[in-house]
């Protein structure tokens, strides 16, 4: 079996797509960390009292509040980062999940006996070689079907002659059909 990239159909997943995904994730995570920084900055940047005792007490009293402040900040960061990353994942991975879903529909149609059209994905979708491989297979099957039917039709033409010739030609055609189908295993 040849590899998916060997037949010159292009890669299954383009490098540009992977780099794009990594870049978007980078921006996304940087945004999340930036928001966390802003929250902590505004929480901790309040001026301390001017006198010695005031600063001492302010710093000592900061400790009990530090844990909930950090917890809320990290929670906000986690929720925002998770939300935006989820949206990003759904949007970006749709370039793979969409064609996969379409292919499944085509396979279901094929199995139910509905006439199958040539499969093509949207531009920008990944896994394009899958559609090309499916079209290649269906194309081969259709070529074999046409050849078999043409052989049988050709034999039927001899039925204008006598019965024995017709039967002999038909049997010959059937042997050829069986031979053609023998390549499938």
């Amino acid at each position, binding site marked *: 079996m040849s590899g998916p990239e060997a037949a010159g159909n292009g890669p299954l997943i383009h490098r540009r797509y992977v780099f794009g995904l990594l870049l978007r994730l980078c921006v996304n995570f940087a945004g999340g960390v930036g928001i966390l920084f802003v929250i902590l900055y505004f929480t901790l940047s309040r001026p301390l009292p001017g006198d010695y005792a005031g600063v001492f007490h302010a710093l000592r009293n900061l400790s009990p509040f530090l844990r909930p402040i950090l917890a809320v900040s990290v929670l906000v960061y986690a929720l925002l980062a998770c939300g935006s990353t989820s949206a990003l994942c759904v949007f970006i991975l749709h370039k793979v999940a*969409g064609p996969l879903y379409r292919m499944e529909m085509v396979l279901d149609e094929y199995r139910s006996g509905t006439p199958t059209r040539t499969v093509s994905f949207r531009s920008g979708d990944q896994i394009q070689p899958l559609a090309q491989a499916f079209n290649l297979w269906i194309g081969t099957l259709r070529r074999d079907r046409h050849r078999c039917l043409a052989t049988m039709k050709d034999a039927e033409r001899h039925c204008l002659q006598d019965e024995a010739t017709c039967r002999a030609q038909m049997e010959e055609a059937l042997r050829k059909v069986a031979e053609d189908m023998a390549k499938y295993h």
Partner: protein
Amino acid sequence: MKNRALQPPWSRIRYVTPRFQGPAVLAFAAIIATGGAIFWKLVDSEFQRVFLHAAIRGHYAFDSAYDIIRDLLAWHLAGLFVGVFLTGSVLVLLLVAATRHGIGKAVDSLRASADGDLSTPTGTGPISEFGRFGEKIDATRSDTLASVLKIRSEAAALAAGGISPEEFRLRWDELKHRIRRIAP
């Protein structure tokens, strides 16, 4: 007024395939949550220590609590970003590798089918969505093989002779109909 019947059929776009996108979203969420938890744990203990140390040191050359932990916070935020991004990148690369492997097997299987091999299992790999997809391809190939084998055996049986002309003609037409149903 536009005639809706003349418009091309609207292809429905499905934005969510939960079996594929769902686990990826959960994995990224787990990375972010873990990173956040580690950051919280580390920063909390460090800040407690630093503020206590600053309070008892006595020389208050700062205007706000932020001035005390500025560098520490910057380093921890940088660590959080790098940690989460690197782990996320590894996850992306694993996802891409699994997709390449799974879909690559499906492509190989379809190409082998074009060469006549309709029986070798696809075997698509670790992601369940690809496994299910591979099973669907195998079922399609299996159906095709079954109908091809039926045609082949029927053609061989008819070619062997010993059938009355009426029955032969009947089965001949039936065989043609069966062949027409391959890859409709």
